[in-house]
């Protein structure tokens, strides 16, 4: 059940600076770079690091040096994304963008990177933090955050949904389909996948 053999599901690896890149920017969803997000022997100082404090009392970011070892802290993920969009719009070729965090965060970063013209070869992602999934109801288009079970009730349309391993990087979400569409009421027990 936890591996449905579907090849669209992303796989992740710990990060190390891509030697072919010229600038290395790492954005993380937490206040610190999670240790498990970095490859063995790699220190956060190999990157220019952006973090999220999740508190309001973060002083506004001073004019920072855009170089390895510098750290900028943002108040929220939204705050970081707004700065990231501005930064990518004035970047030049040679940038490598790295992200560490939960899966929905990673692909939200990817959406912004792609919009700015970065390709998959210029980005790298490490999964860190909770494994809960963002799930898209294919019937009513409602997104549900933090889904940890194989089957859940859609808050949008009330359907009992089965979460497939089919993953859309554009939506940063897994697909869910009604589990009892053929015989209404025939709903198997939900399995806890990411307790």
């Amino acid at each position, binding site marked *: 059940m936890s591996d449905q053999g*579907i*090849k*669209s599901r992303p796989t992740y690896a710990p990060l190390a600076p891509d030697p072919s890149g010229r600038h290395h920017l790492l954005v993380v969803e937490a206040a610190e770079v999670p240790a498990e997000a970095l490859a063995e022997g790699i220190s956060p100082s190999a990157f220019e690091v952006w973090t999220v404090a999740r508190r309001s009392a973060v002083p506004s970011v001073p004019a920072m040096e855009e170089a390895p070892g510098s750290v900028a802290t943002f108040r929220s993920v939204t705050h970081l994304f707004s700065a990231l969009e501005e930064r990518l719009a004035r970047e030049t070729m040679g940038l490598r963008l790295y992200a560490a965090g939960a899966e929905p965060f990673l692909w939200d970063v990817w959406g912004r990177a792609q919009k700015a013209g970065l390709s998959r070869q210029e980005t790298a992602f490490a999964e860190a933090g909770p494994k809960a999934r963002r799930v*898209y109801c294919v019937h009513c288009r409602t997104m549900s955050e933090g889904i940890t079970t194989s089957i859940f009730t859609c808050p949008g349309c009330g359907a009992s949904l089965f979460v497939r391993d089919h993953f*859309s990087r554009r939506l940063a979400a897994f697909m869910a*389909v009604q589990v009892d*569409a*053929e015989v209404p009421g025939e709903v198997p027990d939900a399995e806890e996948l990411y307790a």
Partner: protein
Amino acid sequence: MTVQFKPAETFRDTFTYKKSPEDLLRFPFPFPEDSYMYSVNIEPHVRGGPTAAFQAQFDVDEHYIAECKERARVLAEDPKRCQVLPHMLTAEWDSLEMIMENLAADYPEHFTLSKDGDAWTWVNRPLGIQQSFIFGKAETLPCGPFEYITRQAQGDFTLQDQREDNLFVDGGMVTTQADWSLEFDIGMSFQEWHGPVPLAHEKGVFDRALKYLLRLQYGQPVRRLNWTMTVNPRLDTSPENYPVWGPDKASVTPENVAEKVHLRVELQTLYRLPRSNAILFGIRCYLTSVADIAKVPKWRRRLHRVLRDLHPDIATYKGIPRYQQMVVDYLAPLDDGSATSPGIAPDIEKIEA
């Protein structure tokens, strides 16, 4: 012979869709031999071959008007069934040109395209359309160029962008699909898009098919046949509407199996487009009931043998286990065990009454 259109037939609710005997014989039966496994069964899409469905680049049959009406209905209910990412605009014009020129060349009695430089006029007689527009100026058409022309063609279409040694499904008109969602899949790479298909990845089918398609040449389109089964002649078996059509599957009984269960064939065609270097992928759906298949001796023997021996993972992926055995039981007494000729041709000229 001029085809007699059947504009009133339906693909939902009343399901009045029926095949004429001539239409049955031009069905592109998908099994060239008595067993089935995934393969890269790609061949050049040249006019001619074992079925009349290969006579034109974009096949128009007696269901043309009814299918275009069904498409319009699906789009009215769910406009997201047609989406094209902004960088594919050039591929949209390429597609419009490719489809209009081929329809006009293959069916001059139905379609006419005249050009005066960039000022084009398109006439579609079956649908009663006459449209003048400027090629390359989207604002001169009532909708985007890709949507405009694919509303006037049978079957689904997707647009594949080629970059990073991969193909990305960056646009589509998808209203007659075998259970995949454009809204979910748009933007995916070739492997991601095909992610849910079992066994084929392990056999290297997609890696080989991708390498081949990356080299697909302009002017040398290719085709393949794919198949599944559908209960009732329903074109829109989308995941979006699975709660609507899913219960059909449980409605099959030994008494109604031959009429209800349809072999659903996709004639998939792939065209390299000139300006954009994108690939236009046509996924043309043909539905034929098991009862109609049974009217062709070679086809009924072969369908029986294929379904009887089908790999269970493939059956599950195609969503047929609920009624597979009923179809096999229906066809078994109609299979006299005699040998079948290789290839997909029906081997008969006329359907016996």
